[in-house]
């Protein structure tokens, strides 16, 4: 008994205890006996008191009443789970707006005199360009709200992104500007692909209800606008305060500026932070990127399986032709695309090699190279690109890239007893006059992962139908549901189950 219950009791009541099965006749025992006896008597005499004359208040009825009320209240609560994304967002953002507005935060901030930024220390030319770009950002962002046609809104969004890249360049943050530029290109491309792959009817319908709420009075717009204004204003105040107090602050950024070159031999301090000082962030970041790509692939693989009868909407393809997005196959574009692939690859390699001293790093290298592939998808179409680039299996790029990243992080522990994510500090390793940075291995890993992931994203989004066809054979089911498809790949019929172990070994070896 003791080892079982003592710990339990000690947990509940922090006192010393001793337990006995029987502790003698005492008050507690007497009360227990009395309780048990009275209960027993009540049970024996139940025929008497169950037929007791009707009381005005009956336990059972009270319970039923309460139970009913509780159910009604619960149903009322559950109504708020309306299934409409808009209302969820309104609820969350509205609550946030209330928190920000009601916290008395702004009273404090306005009291401090540091709100309005002052001091002009930028050259006049840059100042003008800077201001122009900022205005352009505002105009194009607002335009993207009011432009009904998706494709124009996408263009406005693209302009905004490029203008932001320009602002980064003037800031001056060339590395960020480069990445922003590339990512904006990729994002715009993806958005156009998405628009071209959704049916025109659905988009027309969505455009019609764009400014309509559930109620005809359309008050929702004002509610949305109020929330947006409060949040926007809050962030404006935060940004103004931070900028106004810039020069007075001490940060760890200064240490990075001072130590990048002496300790690592990397001139580009941003690259030094990304690949070494805060290399962990980057390692997880490329994992995020890779997992997003794998998620897209998995979604594309399964979406067809859950709706196997969804026909390809013929309008989609026609519309694409009309818009001239895909395919864009003219002799000229074919030449351009053929040429662009080696060129982007070359640029990527240059970024990789000179990441330590110039803007551009593993990430930009990966995106660059994948833009080359994207151009092929656009120009040659999915089928031909797959045929021409049959060696290109994005998933293995991801695997190899992340594998190198992990191994690269582990090597110092094995070889030098150094630290994880530390890098082997190779002195004077300058083959052929090129000075490699110590983090080249990591940069390479980043580039491979990002290239694989970006290519996978573009491929999967650009041509889901075909991609699905290709992948089905790899999914093997234990379910005994009638499987209506014959799995044929490259002319041979796989019986997946018997071959899988061998395949597994093969691919692990590769």
């Amino acid at each position, binding site marked *: 008994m003791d080892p079982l219950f003592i710990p339990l009791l000690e947990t509940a009541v922090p006192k010393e205890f001793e337990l006995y099965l029987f502790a003698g006749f005492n008050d507690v025992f007497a009360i227990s006996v009395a309780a048990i006896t009275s209960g027993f008597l009540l049970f024996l005499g139940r025929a008497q008191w169950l037929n007791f004359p009707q009381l005005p208040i009956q336990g059972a009825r009270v319970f039923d009443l309460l139970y009913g009320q509780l159910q009604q209240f619960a149903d009322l609560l559950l109504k708020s789970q309306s299934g409409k994304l808009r209302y969820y967002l309104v609820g969350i953002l509205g609550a946030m707006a209330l928190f920000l507005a009601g916290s008395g935060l702004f009273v404090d901030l306005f009291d401090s005199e540091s709100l309005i930024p002052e001091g002009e220390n930028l050259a006049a030319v840059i100042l003008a360009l800077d201001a122009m770009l900022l205005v352009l950002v505002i105009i194009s962002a607002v335009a993207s709200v009011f432009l009904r046609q998706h494709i124009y809104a996408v263009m406005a969004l693209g302009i905004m992104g490029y203008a932001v890249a320009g602002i980064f360049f003037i800031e001056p943050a060339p590395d960020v500007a480069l990445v922003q530029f590339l990512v904006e290109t990729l994002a715009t491309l993806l958005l156009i692909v998405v628009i071209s792959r959704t049916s025109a009817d659905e988009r027309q319908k969505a455009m019609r209800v764009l400014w309509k709420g559930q109620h005809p009075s359309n008050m929702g717009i004002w509610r949305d606008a109020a929330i947006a204004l409060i949040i926007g204003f809050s962030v404006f105040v935060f940004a103004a305060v931070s900028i106004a107090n810039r020069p007075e602050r001490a940060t760890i950024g*200064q240490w990075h500026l001072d130590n990048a070159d002496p300790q690592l031999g990397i001139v580009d301090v941003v690259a030094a932070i990304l690949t070494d000082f805060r290399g962990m962030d980057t390692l997880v970041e490329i994992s995020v990127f890779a997992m997003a790509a794998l998620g897209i692939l998995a979604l594309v693989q399964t979406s067809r399986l859950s709706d196997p009868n969804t026909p390809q909407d013929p309008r989609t393809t026609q519309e694409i032709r009309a818009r001239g997005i895909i395919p864009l196959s003219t002799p000229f574009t074919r030449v351009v695309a053929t040429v662009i692939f080696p060129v982007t690859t070359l640029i990527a390699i240059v970024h990789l090699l000179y990441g330590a001293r110039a803007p551009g790093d593993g990430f930009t290298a990966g995106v660059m190279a994948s833009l080359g592939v994207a151009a092929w998808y656009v120009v040659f179409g999915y089928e031909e690109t797959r045929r021409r680039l049959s060696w290109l299996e994005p998933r293995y790029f991801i695997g190899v890239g992340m594998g190198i990243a992990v191994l690269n992080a582990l090597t110092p522990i094995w070889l030098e007893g150094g630290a994880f994510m530390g890098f082997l500090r190779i002195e004077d390793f300058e083959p052929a006059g090129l000075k490699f940075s110590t983090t080249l291995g990591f940069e390479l890993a980043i580039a491979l992962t990002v290239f694989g992931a970006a290519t996978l994203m573009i491929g999967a989004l650009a041509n889901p139908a075909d991609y699905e066809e290709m992948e089905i054979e790899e999914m093997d089911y234990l379910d005994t549901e009638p499987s209506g498809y014959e799995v044929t790949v490259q002319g041979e019929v796989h019986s997946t189950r018997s071959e899988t172990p061998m395949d597994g070994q093969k691919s692990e070896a590769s």
Partner: protein
Amino acid sequence: MVDLLFAITVGVLFSVGVFQMLRRDLIKAAMGFSILFTAINLYIIAVGAFDGNVPAYANQPEDSQSSDPLVQALILTAIVVSFGSYALLLSFVTTIARRFETLDSDEVNELVG
């Protein structure tokens, strides 16, 4: 004035992003998502500590002030991470359009109660 304009831009982008995200059209809402993440990048630049006039490179002349390298590194990470979610979001939109045959987020409401 540019600094103030910068702060205003960040604020406007946030407002526009939030407003855009509350639209019924899923593609428009996705654009709002993208605007919000661009805005947050500008905000991170704004919180950088140094008013730099040269890029954050180690071999700059003595009298120049580098821009804050740390916030730039943070933005680079944030851009990549948010682009990952954005791409995933776009693939959801495409698949939703096929599976639910609508782009109106009010009609994608089978999960109730």
